[in-house]
């Protein structure tokens, strides 16, 4: 009996052992990633409309008589931009161009007009390429433009400005465009917040005492209450903590490295961020814990590349964006730079996106941009993306019943910090008795240096706070500020400085 019992136990043991050994053998034969052909990613972007990628940073409507409003509704913006992108290419192809001076341009800004400030200065040649206009423009068009104005008082012209280089012109069309006036009236009826020029708000008598100073600032800021803007709860695009077998991660890996999984290494950082490296670092994909997807490729000199135009590069960039996670419909190009690296031409494209009609500033990304694509000739060597998905809006009006703060109130609240930065930026010697820097001239100086006032959403991707905070962004002298819309607290401030070579390369 004992012998039979021993045999039974032995048999069970042997069966278990064979199962273990079989599993062990099967494991060692299984490839690291089971490649599913169904998840192959299409490389060509179909969901993004390239003509919407070039899109103004802000829209301002002038009603004449010093009254303005800012347009934040996506629908109205799209209508205005459609009209502009219909007129401008048509006028560009006729090329009836007249150079004007700053005074004339400023005068047109004061009329009933549609005004669009571009996020970066784009050359008309590049603009024309996107809209299919033949090349060979007037040489003035080589210099980039940063503002477009269409006035109902000159309905067959499109005014263009390049403030940096101080160049102004208008293009003429054959027919007067009636839709400009219609559009302005429509916005006027729906207007909720009135804007005024900063220089129209300042008490001029203070200036007179000082004598030789002139006060001029065409920036417009709201003088009536801005409608409350909700906070937005958002979610990261990817979860860096997900396992390698996760289907989203696999899709990204296939996109980055193709179907060969054998040479992929995985590294994990202390915070949980993961990097997948192909071979000895030829290509690397990093999934950061704060939601960013970064890709890097070492371009071997043996790889054949060819240089690309602005639009060809833009197409490549968009194709790349589409493959890594989602591409928001509101995506638009916010900056573009060209530099040289040996034999290669390096093109950098920066993109941003909007949520609930406002642009999003992402802290810890280059220039706060949501997406960065860098290519050497036609090969993308660097890609970084950190965008969020919309979850829900959180009403702020109950917590902050007073509503959004005014610009002046924000400046008042943070006056110490702002004036300290201002003194540094302008290299003012406050002990210099000759220039007689009094409080009033101080305030004037600050108000005169106020630029690029904008409503935005602010996202600090390094915090575990998945909320977009409504904010005022503005520049004073050489400092960029982000203020909490309701509390006026400084969310972020940094020095603005565009290196000269970059400024030149945008052409």
């Amino acid at each position, binding site marked *: 009996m004992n012998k039979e019992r021993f045999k039974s136990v032995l048999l069970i043991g042997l069966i278990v052992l064979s199962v273990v*050994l079989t599993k062990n053998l099967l494991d060692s034969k299984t490839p690291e990633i089971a490649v599913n052909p169904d998840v192959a990613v299409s490389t060509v972007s179909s969901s993004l409309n390239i003509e919407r990628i070039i899109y103004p940073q802000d829209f301002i409507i002038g009603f004449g008589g010093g009254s303005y409003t800012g347009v934040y509704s996506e629908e109205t913006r799209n209508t205005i931009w459609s009209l502009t992108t219909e007129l401008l290419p048509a006028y560009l192809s006729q090329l009836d161009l007249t150079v004007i001076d700053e005074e004339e341009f400023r005068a047109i800004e004061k009329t009933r007009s549609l005004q669009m400030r571009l996020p970066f200065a784009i050359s008309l040649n590049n603009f024309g390429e996107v809209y299919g206009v033949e090349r060979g423009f007037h040489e003035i068009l080589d210099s980039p433009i940063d503002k477009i104005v269409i006035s109902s008082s000159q309905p067959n012209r499109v005014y263009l400005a390049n403030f940096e280089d101080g160049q102004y012109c208008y293009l003429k069309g054959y027919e007067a465009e009636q839709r400009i006036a219609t559009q302005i009236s429509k916005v006027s009826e729906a207007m909720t917040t009135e804007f005024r020029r900063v220089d129209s708000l300042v008490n001029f008598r203070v200036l007179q005492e000082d004598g030789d100073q002139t006060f001029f600032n065409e920036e417009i800021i709201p003088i009536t209450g801005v409608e409350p803007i909700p906070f937005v709860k958002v979610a990261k695009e990817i979860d860096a903590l997900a396992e390698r077998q996760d289907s989203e991660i696999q899709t990204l890996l296939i996109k980055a490295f193709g179907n060969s999984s054998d040479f992929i290494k995985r590294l994990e*950082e202390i915070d949980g961020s993961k990097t997948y490296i192909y071979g000895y670092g030829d290509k690397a994909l990093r999934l950061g814990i704060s939601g960013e997807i970064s890709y890097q490729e070492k371009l071997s000199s043996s790889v054949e590349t060819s240089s690309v135009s602005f639009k060809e590069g833009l197409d490549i960039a968009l194709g790349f964006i589409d493959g890594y996670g989602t591409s928001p419909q509101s995506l638009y190009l916010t900056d573009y730079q060209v530099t040289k690296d040996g034999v290669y031409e390096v093109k950098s494209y920066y993109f941003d996106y909007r949520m609930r009609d406002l642009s999003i500033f992402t802290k810890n990304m280059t220039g706060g941009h949501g997406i960065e694509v860098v290519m050497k000739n036609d090969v993308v060597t660097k890609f970084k993306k950190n965008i969020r998905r919309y979850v829900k809006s959180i009403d702020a009006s109950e917590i902050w019943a007073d509503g959004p703060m005014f610009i002046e109130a924000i400046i008042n609240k943070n006056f110490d910090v702002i004036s300290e930065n201002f003194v540094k930026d302008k290299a003012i010697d406050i002990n210099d008795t000759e220039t007689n820097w009094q409080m009033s001239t101080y305030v004037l100086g600050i108000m005169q240096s106020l630029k690029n006032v904008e409503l935005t959403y602010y996202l600090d991707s390094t915090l575990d706070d998945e909320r977009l905070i409504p904010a005022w962004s503005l520049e004073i002298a050489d400092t960029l500020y982000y203020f909490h819309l309701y509390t006026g607290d400084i969310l972020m401030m940094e020095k603005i400085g565009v290196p000269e070579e970059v400024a030149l390369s945008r052409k």
Partner: protein
Amino acid sequence: MDWSKIKTILIVSFIIINLILGYIIYGTQQTFEKKVPVESEVFDQVVALLASKNISVDFDLESYMATVPSLTVSYESYDLNQSADNFLGEGYEVIDGVAILGEEAVKVENDTTLKYFFTTALDDKNDCTLEGAQGIAERFLAQYGYETEDAPWRIDQQGEFLVVTYKQFYKSYYLDEAYMTLAIYDDHVVRFSRKWFQSVAVQNVSRQIVPPSEALFKVIERAYNETVTYGAPIVIEKMELGYRLDDSILFSYIKSGDVFPYWRITFSDGRIIYIEAVKR
């Protein structure tokens, strides 16, 4: 049929099945590491070519591993309080992430680097000898539970101190970026730091290795540029196969990850060149 007889038959057949399975698994693992002799003819040609470029080779290599596995390594992570308890005992104070008690202090950098050090300046002459240093280092490691079977990788004079360095190995392969250093002054350790892999796991993938001759050939271009720059002849002292973590500007502070084999070429002046060792 007799139930007992069936069992006997089953037992015998399962023993056979298990033996076969065991043999296959053992066989697969064996192919992960395969030692082969160096093709001396090609190797000598490359050495001659190096010599013509003013680079001499000062080592013998008779055989090398033609296949090795990839590894997955994971760093030890340290808790400041636990480490402070171990080194300082009770009564320490934590200031700005540094645990301090009297002259001694402990800190943890990026979770994975442990540092113990004396906060006071030492001004007397160091009486410790090279021979004595190793013993002091070994006693220190034993005291705090960080013993290692390997001999010190090197002991050298750095300023006032004798510094004993240990490196981590997997079998005979070096593992870069894992080390212990102990600075010795008189009869005690005044600085200790440790970054060590807690686990080293073998992956089920074996890698074909680039032969030493080919790796040396790749050295030519990189070393030659430097010879031209510095003008001095170069001596290659060592050529070893091992593993190292990749570095990139993309990431920082690695906790764990997969490592590929590299040939590590060490020059007589201490410079090191790494050559990717996996055949593609």
